[in-house]
C-alpha cells in the first residue's frame, strides 16, 4: 500500500512537471531547438579542414604554365582565387583586413626561369594568425605545384621532369609565424568573455525589476525609456573595461601575446563592442518575461556567437550561409578588430568596416530596445 501511495505521489509530481514544462514555452523551444541548431552548426557550418579560402593573386608573369599552376591551386579546393592584386601592397592590405587569407605572388620571368631550369620562386603570403585555418592549405602548396608541373611539362619540356622541385615555393607566414595557438585564442577570448558577461548582465536588467515587483513602481515614476536604458547600461561599461584590462594583462604577462597595434584604438573598439553587447542584453530584457527567459535568450545568442564568429573555427572555412550569419554577430567583427590590432598591427583604416558594422548593430538593436520598452503595464 505504501508503494502504491508513493507511486501516486511520483505520478502527481511528474504530471505537474509536464504541465509546467508545456506552459514554459521558452524552455520547451530550447529543448527542441538547441539540438537542431547544434546539429546544423556542427554538421554543416563547422569545418576543421577549411577549404575554399579566399586568395589573391599578384602575377607579374603570365603564361600557360602560370595559368596551369594557378588553376591547380584552385582545383585543390583549398584556395579560392578571388582577386587579382595590382601591386604587392594591395595584396598585403587585403591580407591585413582579412579579406583574403593568402596572396600568391608569381614573380617576373617565372616562366623563363622555369624553362631554363633555374628554379623560379613562387611566393605565398599567408595570414597565419589563426594557425588552424592556414596550416592545411600551406601544407598542400608544394604538392599542388609539383602536381601541376607533372601534367604540364610534356613534349619538349619533358626533360624538366626531375624528382627535384623545379619551383621553389616560398611560404611567408605573416602575423603568427610560429603558429602559436594562444596568440589567436587569447585575444579572441576577450571578445567571448565580454559577450557572455555583458549580454547576460543587462538581459536581467528589466526582468529583475518586474520579477521582484519593482517595475510598477519604476514605471509610476517619471522615467523615460532612454534614461532607463542608459542608466542600466552605463555601469556595466565600466565592468567590461575592467575585464578587458585583466584579460589583456594576462595576454601579455601569462601568454606573451604580441601587441603590434595601438592600445588606444583597441580600447575604442572594446568600448563600441561592449556597448553593442549591452544594448543587445537590454533588448533581450525588454522582451523576456522572467530572468530565466533572459538567461535562455543569452544562451541562444551565445552559442552561434562562439561557433560562427571565427573564434573556435576558421571563419573563412565555413559555407557562405554560415558566414552571412556570422557577419551579423558583433563578436565576428570584434575578433577581426582585436586580432587585427594585436597581431597584425592594423590601424583605423583597416578596421573601419568593423567599426561601422558594430555601430550599425548598436543603432538597430538600441532602436528595437526603445520601441520594445514597456511604458505601461499593458
Amino acid at each position, binding site marked *: 500500500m505504501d508503494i502504491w501511495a508513493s507511486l501516486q505521489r511520483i505520478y502527481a509530481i511528474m504530471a505537474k512537471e509536464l504541465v509546467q514544462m508545456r506552459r514554459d514555452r521558452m524552455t520547451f523551444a530550447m529543448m527542441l531547438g538547441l539540438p537542431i541548431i547544434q546539429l546544423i552548426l556542427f554538421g554543416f557550418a563547422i569545418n576543421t579542414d577549411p577549404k575554399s579560402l579566399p586568395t589573391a593573386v599578384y602575377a607579374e608573369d603570365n603564361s600557360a604554365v602560370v595559368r596551369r599552376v594557378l588553376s591547380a591551386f584552385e582545383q585543390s579546393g583549398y584556395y579560392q582565387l578571388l582577386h587579382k592584386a595590382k601591386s604587392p601592397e594591395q595584396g598585403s592590405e587585403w591580407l591585413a583586413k582579412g579579406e583574403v587569407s593568402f596572396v600568391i605572388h608569381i614573380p617576373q620571368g617565372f616562366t623563363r626561369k622555369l624553362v631554363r631550369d633555374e628554379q623560379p620562386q613562387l611566393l605565398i603570403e599567408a595570414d597565419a594568425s589563426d594557425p588552424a585555418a592556414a596550416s592545411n592549405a600551406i601544407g598542400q602548396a608544394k604538392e599542388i605545384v609539383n602536381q601541376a608541373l607533372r601534367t604540364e611539362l610534356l613534349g619538349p619540356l619533358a626533360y624538366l621532369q626531375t624528382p627535384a622541385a623545379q619551383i621553389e615555393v616560398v611560404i611567408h607566414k605573416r602575423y603568427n609565424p610560429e603558429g602559436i595557438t594562444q596568440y589567436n585564442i587569447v585575444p579572441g577570448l576577450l571578445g567571448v568573455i565580454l559577450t557572455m558577461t555583458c549580454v547576460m548582465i543587462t538581459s536581467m536588467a528589466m526582468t529583475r525589476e518586474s520579477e*521582484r*515587483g*519593482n*517595475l*510598477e*513602481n519604476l*514605471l*509610476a*515614476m*517619471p*522615467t*523615460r525609456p532612454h534614461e532607463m536604458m542608459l542608466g542600466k547600461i552605463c555601469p556595466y561599461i565600466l565592468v567590461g573595461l575592467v575585464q578587458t584590462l585583466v584579460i589583456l594583462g594576462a595576454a601579455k604577462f601569462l601568454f606573451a601575446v604580441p601587441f603590434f597595434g595601438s592600445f588606444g584604438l583597441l580600447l575604442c573598439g572594446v568600448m563600441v563592442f561592449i556597448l553593442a553587447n549591452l544594448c543587445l542584453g537590454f533588448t533581450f530584457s525588454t522582451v523576456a518575461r522572467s530572468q530565466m527567459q533572459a538567461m535562455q535568450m543569452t544562451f541562444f545568442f551565445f552559442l552561434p556567437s562562439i561557433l560562427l564568429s571565427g573564434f573556435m573555427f576558421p571563419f573563412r572555412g565555413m559555407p557562405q550561409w554560415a558566414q552571412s550569419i556570422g557577419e551579423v554577430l558583433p563578436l565576428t567583427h570584434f575578433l577581426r578588430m582585436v586580432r587585427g590590432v594585436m597581431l597584425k598591427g592594423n590601424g583605423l583604416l583597416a578596421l573601419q568596416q568593423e567599426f561601422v558594422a558594430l555601430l550599425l548593430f548598436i543603432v538597430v538593436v538600441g532602436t528595437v530596445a526603445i520601441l520594445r520598452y514597456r*511604458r*505601461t*503595464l*499593458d
Partner: protein
Amino acid sequence: MSELAIDVRGLVKRFNDKAVVRGVDLQMPKGQVWGFLGPNGSGKTTTIRMICGLLEPSEGEGRCLGFDIRKQARQIRDATGYMTQKFSFWEDLTIRENLAFVARLYNLPKRGQLVDQTLAKLGLTERQNQLSGALSGGWKQRLALAAVTMHKPDLLLLDEPTAGVDPQARREFWDEIHQLSNQGMTVLVSTHYMDEAERCDKIVYLAHGNILTQGRVADVIQRAGLITFQGKGEQVRRLAEQLKGTPGVEHVAFFGAALHISGRDRAKLQSAIQALPKDDTHWQEIQASLEDTFISLMQDAGKDTREHG
C-alpha cells in the same frame, strides 16, 4: 484647471477580451479623501492604474489633475504619488538609499536634507542604513508612503496600503493620510476594511468592473434601504441554516456571537423571524452596517451579471 482631481468617463479595460473594468465614471473633487471599495477582482487596481497612466484604457477617456490620461501620462506621473499594493521599493537597498533614489528621480531640490527630514518624520533615522527588506510589513508601508509623497504630489493613489498590517499600524497610517489631506493632497485609497471606509469623505463601491454606488457612508447605507435584524442567543447557529433561503431574507451573517439577517422588506423579515421555533433568541432591529450593505450590493450585482451573461 478644473476643480476635479480625477475626471474619467466610460473607462473600460480588457485583457485578452476579458473586461475587467466595464465603464467606470469617476468625478473626484480636489482636496478630498475617497475610499475605493469592492471585492477582489472588482477592478479597483486596474482603474487606479488607468488613472495614473500605467495602463492604457481600452475605451473611455478622462483627465487626471487636468492631464489627459492617454496622452499625458508623464505629466500625471510627475504630479501623482502611487503606492502599489505589494511593496515595490528595493528590498536590497537601504531605507536611505531608497528615499535618495526617489528624490533623485524626481529631481527634488536639497535632496540630502529632504531625505533626512523624511527619515526623521518616519522615526527611521537610526535605522536608515538597514536594508528595507528587513522592515516589518507595517514599516514597509510607512516607508512606501513617505517615498511616494516626497515630491509633494497633488494626488495620492493608494492601492490597499494597509492590507496585512496590524490595527495599531493601520491607525497610524490613516493619521498620516489625514495629515497629508490637511496639507491639500487629494487621496484615493482602496481598501477592504470597513472602518477605513468610514474615515473617508466619500466611498466608491466597485464590483465586477462597475461602480455600484458612491457617496458618503451614511448616504450609501441609507440608499441601499437595507433593514437588518440582530439575533442574540444560544441557538443562533442552528437558526442561521433555517433562515437561509427564507423569502425576504436576503442575507445572513454572523457578527461575533450575534446573527444579522437583512432584507429590503421589513414585514417579510419579521414574519421570517416569527416563523422560527420559539427559543431564548432575542431579536431587535438595528442600523444596517456598511458591511451588510456591501454584501447585499455585491450579491445583487452577482445576480445581474449572471442574468446578463
